[in-house]
């Protein structure tokens, strides 16, 4: 289809242009060879891992290169879903932990970050420049470089499980109240829109997560904040929040201000403008920023590896590390391959779906890895 389109396009411009000319056959051949070579290098590791994951023989290591191993089956996937590592945890448990961590951090960062991003994007106030530099500088600092103080501080927070449950329930109530504060007035004035519901929904999900954590059975009498998903989540927020603020600010800057100016003339307050005009327009930005934070959290490694000791809390990235390098032992590589694919798929699919929005934002946004 595309080649037909280009030929008609060149035909219409024929005579007036040299740039739009058709390629000579040897040029086409040369460029195709180059493109195919690049495609081969891109696909080689992916094909390798896919074909290895289909190997049914359960041998420890591959001994030859084969595109489709003899008797290909999904046996490795079954084994990995059942019990990926030596630890007594299933894939579902690992994935749930990663999901809670990544989802909670992403939601929290969005909820808190979007209003700060709005302030940076739309208001002029004394100290704005310095605050923005502070936020941006944090996104440049590597997350690994704050691991020592976060470990020490979170390790010092030890409370009894009951106290923790109460604290979490209070936090959940606060989040719900925050959501209601936004949704109820909008409903009353009849001006509720997609943005209001989005914020309300986010608050609801986040508070549900908190309530769930509050009632989840605690491992011991004393709860060490460091040795829990909650602690890892707090440590991750340390980097995720500045990233979300910066990324959202970049997107908000690109939203034209004509609508807001019109609303100001109609006498709208800054709050009305934020909730009824800016938030609905920022839904794609929220989705992309939320996704990027989620993707970072989904495979977060060093904080979880350093903080968590209870196998019930382990995450996907930790299991993946357990299957490679010095810890691999006799884990068949077919399982490692299947596990890698299972970890990558959800993120990769969403990435491809949101690709158009993400690419613009990557250059605007921060650089935190």
């Amino acid at each position, binding site marked *: 289809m595309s*080649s037909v389109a280009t030929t008609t396009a060149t035909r219409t411009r024929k005579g*007036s*242009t*040299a*740039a*739009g000319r*058709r*390629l000579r056959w040897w040029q*086409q051949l040369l*460029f195709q060879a180059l*493109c195919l070579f*690049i*495609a081969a290098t*891109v696909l*080689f*590791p992916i094909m390798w891992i896919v074909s290895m994951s289909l190997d049914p023989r359960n041998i420890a*290591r*591959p001994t030859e290169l084969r595109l489709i191993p003899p008797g290909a089956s999904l046996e490795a996937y079954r084994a990995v879903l059942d019990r990926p590592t030596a630890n007594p945890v299933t894939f579902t448990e690992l994935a749930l932990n990663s999901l809670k961590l990544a989802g909670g951090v992403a939601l929290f960062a969005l909820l*808190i970050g979007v*209003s700060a991003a*709005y*302030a940076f994007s739309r*208001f002029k*106030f*004394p100290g*704005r420049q310095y*605050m923005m530099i502070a*936020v*941006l*500088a*944090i996104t*440049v*600092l*590597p997350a*690994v*470089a704050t*691991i*020592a*103080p976060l*470990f*020490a501080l979170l*390790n*010092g927070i030890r409370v009894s499980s009951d106290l923790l449950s109460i604290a979490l329930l209070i936090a959940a109530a606060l989040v719900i109240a925050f959501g209601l504060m936004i949704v109820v007035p909008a409903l009353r004035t009849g001006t509720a829109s997609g943005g209001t519901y989005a914020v309300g929904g986010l608050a609801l999900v986040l508070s549900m997560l908190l309530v769930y954590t509050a009632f989840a059975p605690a491992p011991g009498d004393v709860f060490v904040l460091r040795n829990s998903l909650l602690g890892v989540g707090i440590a991750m*927020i340390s980097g995720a*929040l*500045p990233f979300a603020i910066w990324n959202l600010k970049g997107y908000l800057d690109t939203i034209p201000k004509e609508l807001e100016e019109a609303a100001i003339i109609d006498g709208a307050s*800054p709050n009305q403008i934020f909730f009824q005009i800016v938030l609905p327009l920022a839904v794609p930005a929220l989705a992309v920023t939320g996704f990027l934070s989620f993707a970072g959290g989904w*495979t977060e490694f*060093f904080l979880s590896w350093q903080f968590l000791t209870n196998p019930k809390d382990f995450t996907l*990235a930790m299991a*993946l590390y357990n299957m*490679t*390098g010095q810890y691999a032992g006799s884990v068949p*590589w077919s399982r490692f391959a299947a596990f*890698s694919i299972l*970890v990558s798929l959800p993120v990769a699919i969403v990435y*491809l779906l949101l690709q158009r929005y993400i690419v613009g934002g990557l*250059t605007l946004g921060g*650089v935190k*890895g």
Partner: protein
Amino acid sequence: MAATNPGMATLKPKAARSPASEAWRQLRTPLVYLIPAALIMALVTFYPLAYQVWMSFTDYGVIKEEGKQTLNRFGPDGQPPPNYRPAEWVGFKNYSDILTNEPQFVARLGGTFNFWRLLGFNLWWTFSNVAFHVALGILIAVLLNVEGLWGRKIYRALYILPMVLPNIVIATVWRNMFDDQYGAVNQLLSMFAGTPVNIRWFNQIEPPIPGVPLPLSYYAMLIANIWLGWPFMTLVATGALQSIPKEMYEAAAIDGATGSQQFWNITLPLLRPAMVPAAMVGIVTTFNLFHIIYFMSGGGPLGQTEIMVTQAFKLVNAQQLFGVAAAFSVIIALVLIPIFLITNRISRATESYDV
């Protein structure tokens, strides 16, 4: 602030307000929006950073007597346990240990630590990777932009794949691909060579190019990271290429410019505004690229491919020297600040957005 906010100065005489109340009036509304994030960041971002600076001047984490002492102030009953020892102030000792490669300190880390080699390698690692990313990114974008090329859409869709996979998966997969016995790279080379090839990618200590003090594992990781990094640059370059008006090439062609002249005099200068910020992002990302190094070579052989962030993690994770790790992290920040300032200047990221 007057420089960034010239409106203030002109308003003052007319509105007969004191500067303080004027500032407050401007700050009031944005403050409401900033407070939640400011509180959270103060608590989980800035306080730990300040604590880190304090930690860097202490012996935090050093166990004095054979695993007996603990730095956990709170025991099971909420009271300090009997073996609790508060961290002691050691002044600049951590910094001087790191910067002068103090022999006892180096021995404690396994004997291969050398700060200046580490810093040099980290900078070279960053520079060499980003150079490849940008050069390949531009060339491939130009190739894909050739008019009349068949299957452009398919290639563009394929070439984005390295970007969408999680870094940690890419690193572990490439680690196994470069395995000396079972890795796909050696198997592929064996296929072409016809004889078994057993390159010890991660364990060979002698540099493969005599005179260049870079071990084989550097080249393996360079290959993996080039694979990972160029698609982003191609995406950025493609976007910029498509905004170059065709008339410029037509005019150049009429004036008799050859293809390579057009590339050097039209394409490259017009790509610059898009590529420079992207390269800056790439530099910071690559400088801090934890996953590739930690999961592929693990810093080996003999710590020759260690970078700052992997060393910082090992100081906490393996050696549990929190004070030293804090000092090391402060040094990382000091190295990054100039890079950040240059980035900020070039990309004008925090400059006032025209309201």
